[in-house]
Every structure is written in structure tokens, then in C-alpha cells.
């Protein structure tokens, strides 16, 4: 059982000082959320998510693996594990388009974030997904005047300017 301060000492990653550093990090094997990321056991989502064939699996080093960097100077979610206990891959196929990584842990691993502290994950197979929100319907593309259109590369000018209505966009801390 590790405390937040144990993790920060082992990995060299920092967390905000107002978080409870001496609290033992709870470890769970079910669904957990850290900010805008979801850690989900793979089995319940097996019909939606899987690792790609020929996916490149990498070992999770003790210093941690960055899974998602926040935008606009925001912070990173890092997966940390003891040596030789966990492998991860970014080559994941998700019917909902939300997965950014999958990992296979043979011992307890942790997801660390500067503002959210640490999430303890029991041994098992998991997928990490981003959060989404609804965006508005696409405003129809203005018919570009001659001037603007000609400032684009020819390769783009030739393409059909069809705007596909995306129903959602991904968000970050």
C-alpha cells in the first residue's frame, strides 16, 4: 500500500502541495475517474474496445509513462508501475473513439496527476478513455472567396470542401 508521498519520491513527479500526501492511496479494480480520464476494466467494454492487432506494447518504466498531456499549460496524467509489472500500448481500437491507451498490470499500478493526485489500480487489464462533450452543429462553411481559396495549397483546393458534422469533441483539464 503506497501513500502519495511514496509515489512522488519514487517517480520524481510532483503533485500540488495541498493534496493529502500521507494518505494511503485506495486501490480498486473497477471503474475509476481521474479528472477527464476514465480507467475502465477491459472486460465490460470488450465489445467496444480492444488492442489493435500488431499493437506495440511498451514496458511501463518506474519513472512513469505520460498518457495524456493537458492543453494550455495543463498537467499530464502519468501511469507508474514497479519494474517489470506492467505493459501498455497506445494502439487501441475504440468504437466510441475515446480510448487513448490500454495496459496490462501484473501488480498494483498508479495513475498520477499533479492536480488530482493518484489513482490506485489493482492487477488486471484496463483501458484509459478521455471524456467528451457535445459540440454545436457545424456552422456551414462560408463559401470561400476567390482570394482565400487561392491562398491554400492546390492539394487542398482540389479536395471537396465537405464539412462532416462531428457530434462531439474531446476535452481536457
Amino acid at each position: 500500500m503506497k501513500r502519495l508521498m511514496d509515489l512522488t519520491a519514487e517517480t520524481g513527479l510532483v503533485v500540488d502541495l495541498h493534496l493529502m500526501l500521507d494518505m494511503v492511496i485506495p486501490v480498486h479494480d473497477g471503474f475509476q475517474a481521474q479528472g477527464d480520464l476514465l480507467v475502465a476494466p477491459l472486460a465490460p467494454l470488450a465489445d467496444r474496445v480492444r488492442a489493435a492487432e500488431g499493437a506495440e506494447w511498451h514496458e511501463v518504466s518506474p519513472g512513469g509513462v505520460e498518457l495524456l498531456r493537458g492543453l494550455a499549460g495543463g498537467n499530464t496524467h502519468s501511469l507508474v508501475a514497479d519494474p517489470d509489472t506492467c505493459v501498455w500500448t497506445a494502439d487501441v481500437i475504440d468504437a466510441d473513439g475515446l480510448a487513448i491507451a490500454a495496459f496490462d498490470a501484473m501488480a498494483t499500478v498508479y495513475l498520477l496527476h499533479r492536480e488530482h493526485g493518484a489513482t490506485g489500480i489493482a492487477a488486471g487489464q484496463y483501458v484509459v478513455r478521455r471524456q467528451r462533450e457535445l459540440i454545436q452543429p457545424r456552422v456551414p462553411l462560408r463559401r470561400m472567396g476567390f482570394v482565400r481559396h487561392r491562398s491554400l495549397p492546390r492539394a487542398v483546393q482540389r479536395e471537396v470542401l465537405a464539412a462532416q458534422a462531428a457530434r462531439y469533441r474531446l476535452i481536457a483539464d
Partner: protein
Amino acid sequence: MEGMSIKPMDDAQRAIAAHALEWTDRALSTEPVDWQRWLTGVRGCYDHISVRWPGNVVRVSSPLAMARALFLARVDETPGDEGRALIGMVRGLVQDRVDGLLSKFSDRAQVTRALHRVHSPVEAAVGGDAVAQAVEHAFATGPGIRDPHDTQESARAAARRIAPSTVRLGRAGQMANRSSAWQLHLGGQWDSAWCAYATYLAGVVGGDTRKGWRRRLQALVDAQSAGWWWPHLSFVMVSDRPRVVRTEELGDGLRRLHNADGPALVWPDGWSLYFWHGTRVPAWVVEKPTVDAIHAEANVEVRRCGIESMGWEAYLTKARLRLIDTAADPGNDGFELRLYEVPAAVWGMPARVLLAINGSPERDGTRRRYGLPVPADMDTAVHAAAWTYGISQDQYAGLARRT
């Protein structure tokens, strides 16, 4: 793209990323313009299109000043006659010539890579044609006397310098269309995306560095190193760069125009534009968002920016939107989720919004609340929260812990 998922990069990817970063910084630079270099480039362009160098360079303080100056000087260009305007010749004989050769020398994969990894991020950084749209808006909504004082001065001074030499180029018998002459400009640093794309491919293509097309490319790149420029038979008008550019980092060197505290672009004459996370917005979105202003706004994207600027919690309370459901936040003891109805008139389509609360406290001990728009068919708060992660209501209700 919000947030960057990490994939290991090889050398080629690092090189292309560095190229895009370099050109993003050039596009948004407020450093003093190297006017000698710009002049060399523009003279080179006139040379390549075989037009005599007019010798009359007229500097203005902003794109808006350029547009007003062309109007005041009665420069008459009807879009549609571009083939006879010099911009058409520059685009055709310089830009398209280079573009075509680059396409010929590159394979499809290289072109696609250059478009996605170089052209796209640089174009996004400058906000596409946001500056042109702002000038169009200024013309549509107000006469020149409402422009900043120095913009008007710059426009008048420039108009006086070119007025004696302008020529009516409209078709005989056709009503002169003066208000859109400004559209026939080349974008300067605002056209950086093409320059970034072309210089990248030119580097990849290799081969003889003395080739003529490389000289054309260099001339155009140099000519695009200042602000907008407007080539005419009798003069060249060129705008200054902005003196203030405010952006936010998106990771890996990607940037977009944004400032929550004031304008994101300010030109030396005071003409200012506001941006919210890459979208051009009216000043009120940044300076003073109110429910009334949000609801009076015609543009749905601007409305969304106004709500974000005000904050969903404040907006939901002040606009008194209908509360549909509240529920204990699974895995986040003592806090609750709230689901509100958002009128279709506000969001552009029926929608609901989930008011969620951070699982971790801020430095001052409070918990930040934020709004997540969700589809209108979300019937409960927990269902809405589950949707945001793509899982079922039951799966989300069983969330062990949220931080």
C-alpha cells in the same frame, strides 16, 4: 485538438514538428519586420510576373487601415476580375507554379504529411482567415469614423499617396465596387501556412538548389514576411504586423489565439481583435459576458464562447435554465451532479448540460464546477455523466472513485 496523447516520435516526425513550430512562431511574430528583406521579396515577385516595379511603397498600420485606404482612394476592383489584378498574377505565376512543381516532385504520402503536420497547425495558429473576416465585419457594421483614431489617420495618409495614380479597372458600364478592393491582398504572415507547407516540401524534395522555382519560392516567402500586401501597377501597399499577439499553448508547440484578459491581437494603430480559444469573438465575450449579451448574439459559436467565459455555473444560475435532475456524484462523496435543459436557441440544437464538480480540491479548498454539454436525450445526471465517458449508466453508477 484538446490534449495530446503521446506516441513515441522518430527523427522525421521530430523534424516536421520542428518545422511547423518554427513557422507558427514566424506567423505570430511581433518582432520588427525586416523591411529590406520584404522589399527584396516583393520586387522579386514583380520581376517574376514581368510587371514594372512601381517604386511607390505605401505602409499602413493595420489590415483595417489598408482596407479603408483603398476605399478612400477609390481603388476599384471587382472580384471576378482578379485575372487582371496583380494578385492573380502573383498567385498564378509564383505560388501556383511552385505549388504545382512541388506536387509533381513529391509523392502523395509526403504531400499528405505536409498538409496535416505543417499546413494545418500553422493555419490553425493564425486563426484561418479570421483577420479578413474581422475587416469584412468592420466594413459591414460601421463607417471609418468608428475605427481607432490612428487607423483613420493611417488610412487617410495612405489614400493621399496613392489617389493620383489609381486607375478604374472595373468593366465598362458596371457599377464600381469599391468596398471589397481590400480582398485582393496577399496575407503576409497570415499566409504562413502555405509558406510553411511549401518550404517543408522544398526541403524534402531536394535536388538542384539553383532551380528557378526555388527563387520564386524564396521571393514569395520574403514578400509574405510582413503584414497584408496589396500589389498594384502603380503602388504596393503593405500593413504593419500586430504589436501584441496573445496565444495559448496546446502542447508540442501548437498554439492558438486566445486571451481571457483582453484583446489577442492589437495593431500599432490600436485596432484590436479578441479571441477565445481560437475563435474570434466580440469584445464583450472577454471583457463583460452577460446573459443578455449571450442571448442576443446571433452566432452560435460566439454564444458558446460567451457562456464559457462567464462560466457554466454562473450562466445556468443567472439564465435560470430548467433543472432536470440531481444525483449524488458516484465515487465523489458528498458532492452532486446536476443536469439542466439548454434551449435549442442557445446551443443551435436541443441539448442538455451536466454541471459536474471536480473530484479534487483547488489550492483554496474549493471545488471547481464546470459544465459539460450532453445530448438532449440524456434523462438523468448519472446517464449524462456516463455518456461523457462512453459507458452505461449502471457502469458509471458503480464508479469506485473519482479524483
